[in-house]
């Protein structure tokens, strides 16, 4: 890396040129990873749901078990007509998917795929993820409001309420880990799990995190902002084509993010025998994603009030309990 | 109560309001004058006929009348009642029975929609199956619509 920078200096170019090049390359790499990973996840979700439901799912496109189905769907979405509903707020309507996707993408900055394989090891790592994930809701509200549709407004309101309610237990549930490590840096947290994964001492925190994270991703059983049987499709009911594809991409990108964060915080990140670190990390992450898909195709949807009750009356007290016990143990140990 | 007892009770109470009566199996069948129909239905409900199975309207074009048919039964006895009331076509008004059986609400709306019988005292007498701006009463025998083409065998 140093040599790379030096090379530019010898050519007489200012420093920000190589810096910019590095940034663009890294961002492109992340973007490609996200796109490929999402395509894989969509195909996987379709196959998993199909096999849960005693059917096959996509079998034709691409030959082997319809592996190219997602690519075909993506191309189809790209070339569809761009429809903006009448009476919609055009600017906000166009901006909303970008906000949602940007928020989803930004979180990839702090995912530690392996030792040193991290875009930027911020020293506020976890906090960065938490704060950036709250941006998604702004995008959802923008989408819901600008569509000029009552179902989407209802979906946006539900989404706002849900996000505010579940952000709190989510943050408190990972405090136990942060207190144990004494750092917010993702790399430091993973390194601290050399011996015992935090899922063992922090089992309660892990479960709370998982539930709250599924709610953050708006997935069943917490998908009430887009509940198709009540609100048709909630906040993105008026979106189609490319804009819808971006929402879709963001949803799956978020799924990957929360699973990756859970892997790093609780499941020992890249630690594991035999296989290389990055592979272990991806294996654990995709296992968590599989769990989320499994839940989605097995459970029914919660109701709004039940969702709120679960968040505030069950998860939050438990998360505080977890934090208190962790603190007590840390103090007693000295 | 057997069907005969029901018929007897109604006859003794309302006398000549019952135009004709007949017993068929466990069903008491009565033809009733319009004026007394509501009182008779109250009396029948008092006898335990708490379940209004069906309310139908029939167009008796030949005699220039419309007929409202009540099918009553009870969840505690096998006896059933079939009661017919006729109203003249030019003045098709009859007392609504929504206050006795709530289920009559939609049945009466349907009868109004299809046959044009006006139910006096119905809380919300609107068309139910056809659209609000429909003209005419489709199930009447003399209903004409330019969209109705007579069927001609080939």
């Amino acid at each position, binding site marked *: 890396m140093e040599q790379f920078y030096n090379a530019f200096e010898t050519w007489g170019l200012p420093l920000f040129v190589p810096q910019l090049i590095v940034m663009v390359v890294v961002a492109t790499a992340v973007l490609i990873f996200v796109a490929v990973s999402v395509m894989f996840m969509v195909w996987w979700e379709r196959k998993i*749901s199909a096999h*849960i*439901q*005693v*059917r096959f799912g996509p079998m034709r496109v691409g030959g082997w078990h319809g592996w190219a189905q997602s690519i075909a769907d993506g191309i189809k979405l790209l070339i569809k007509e761009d429809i903006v509903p009448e009476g919609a707020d055009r600017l906000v309507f166009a901006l909303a998917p970008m906000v949602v996707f940007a928020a989803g993408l930004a979180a990839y900055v702090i995912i530690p795929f392996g030792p040193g394989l991290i875009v930027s090891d911020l020293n506020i790592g976890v906090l960065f993820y938490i704060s950036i994930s709250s941006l998604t809701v702004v995008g959802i509200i923008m989408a819901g409001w600008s569509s000029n549709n*009552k*179902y989407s407004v*209802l979906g946006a309101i*539900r989404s706002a309420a849900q996000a505010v309610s579940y952000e709190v237990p989510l943050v408190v549930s990972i405090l136990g880990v942060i207190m144990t490590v004494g750092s917010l840096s993702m790399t430091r947290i993973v390194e601290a799990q050399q011996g015992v994964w935090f899922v063992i001492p922090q089992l309660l925190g892990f479960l709370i995190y998982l539930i709250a994270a599924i709610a953050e991703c708006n997935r*069943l*059983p917490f*998908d*009430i902002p887009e*509940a*198709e*049987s*009540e*609100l*048709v499709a909630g906040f993105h009911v008026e979106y189609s084509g490319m804009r819808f594809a971006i929402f879709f991409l963001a949803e799956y990108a978020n799924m990957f993010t929360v699973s990756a964060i859970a892997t790093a915080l609780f499941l020992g990140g890249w630690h594991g025998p035999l296989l290389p670190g990055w592979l272990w990390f991806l294996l654990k992450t995709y296992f968590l994603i599989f769990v989320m898909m499994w839940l989605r*195709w*097995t*459970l*029914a*949807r*919660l*109701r*709004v*009030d*039940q969702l709120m009750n679960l968040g505030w009356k069950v998860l939050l007290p438990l998360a505080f309990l977890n934090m208190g016990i962790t603190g007590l143990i840390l103090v007693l140990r000295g | 109560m057997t069907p005969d007892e029901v018929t007897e009770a109604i006859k003794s109470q309302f006398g000549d309001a019952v135009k004709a009566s007949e017993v068929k199996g466990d069903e008491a069948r009565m033809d009733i004058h319009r004026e007394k129909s509501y009182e008779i239905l109250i009396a029948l409900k008092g006898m335990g006929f*708490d*379940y*209004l*199975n*069906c309310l*139908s309207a*029939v*167009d008796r074009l030949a005699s220039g009348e419309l007929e409202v*048919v009540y*099918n009553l039964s009870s*969840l505690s006895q*096998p006896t*059933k009642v*079939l009661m017919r009331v006729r109203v003249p076509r030019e003045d098709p008004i009859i007392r609504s029975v929504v206050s006795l*059986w*709530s*289920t009559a*609400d*939609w*049945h009466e709306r349907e009868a109004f929609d*299809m046959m044009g019988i006006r139910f006096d005292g119905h809380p919300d007498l609107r*068309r*139910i*199956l*056809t*659209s*609000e701006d429909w003209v005419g009463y*489709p*199930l009447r025998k003399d209903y004409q619509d330019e969209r109705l083409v007579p*069927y001609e065998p080939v």
Partner: protein
Amino acid sequence: MNLQEMEIAEQTQETMEEMYVNMGPQHPSTHGVLRLLLKLDGEVVTEVIPYIGYLHRCHEKIGENRTYTQIIPYTDRLDYLASMYNNFGYVLTVERLIGIVVPERAEYMRVILGELQRIASHLIWLGTLGLDLGNFTIFMYAFREREKILDLFESVSGQRLNYAFYRIGGMPLDFPDSFLADCKAFLEWFKPRLPEYDALMSDNIIFQKRVQGLGKLDAKTAIDYAISGPMLRASGIKWDLRRNDPYSIYDRFEFDIPVGTSGDVWDRYMVRRIEMDESVKIVEQALQGLPPGEIIGKVPKKLKPPVGDIYTRVESPRGELGFYLVSDGSDKPYRYKVRSPAFVNLSVLPVIGRGCLVADIVAILGSIDIVLGEVDR
């Protein structure tokens, strides 16, 4: 309230506390083209106004212009998820009007097909209730089983949805040779599937919490609204026309009538769920007792019932399916009226749907189990 009035109401309202939402006629969970006008206070539904008739096909008017036999295929289109039972109710009405005796074998065939149809219909209801509550998997499971029943029907009648298979006086065709074995194999295969539904639905705490205590309908209101079928039984009234006003040969079979206690969505779910078990029992007994012999009775060449009228009711999967026929002595009915259970059951929705949340309206509607073909006729 029409659209213009809605616009006016909307402009005068100050806050979102009074929002009107049109649910349907194009909506994923109104089970067809039902339109519900919801008055919302935030998420709470303060008023439900159903608008029906989008699927009105002049069923009764057509009936008046067809001969008695010609009406049979039209009855298929009433409750298209339980066509066999519509046929059953209609031919029974005409037979009683004329006084035709149906051979024993035909009666057994009718009961077997009717009860299989009840299972198929309840399976669709189970699947769509799951969909309404966000559980997609149960839908696929239910359809898998229903396909097998449709295969059986296809082997008998050649059709998979609109069978038009019952005839006035009996049945047109005997069972094919393989039917008895196939049907027994299906029942053996189906019985272990019912616990699978329990695992997905009944035993799932989210499902329980969603539906328990929801959309309560007490017995008094149920009778007042003439609710029938599983909905009435869920309200705690042990009333089943197969037992209380027996038609055909239902008095020969042993089966239980499940009843609920509070009349909420959970009770309606459990009643229908157990009814599937009971239908299996009836089919098994009927297969056991299926006698040989004729399948169609003595029917006059030209069907001209005597002048008169008759109201006949049967216990269709959705409740009391009644036919009111008025004959003027000709070969066509003078008046042909269908008392459809879904139509009557739906009329109670404004009462039980008031005060619940938007998500609950969907669940309550699902628990009523409407078929718009029958509601709108």
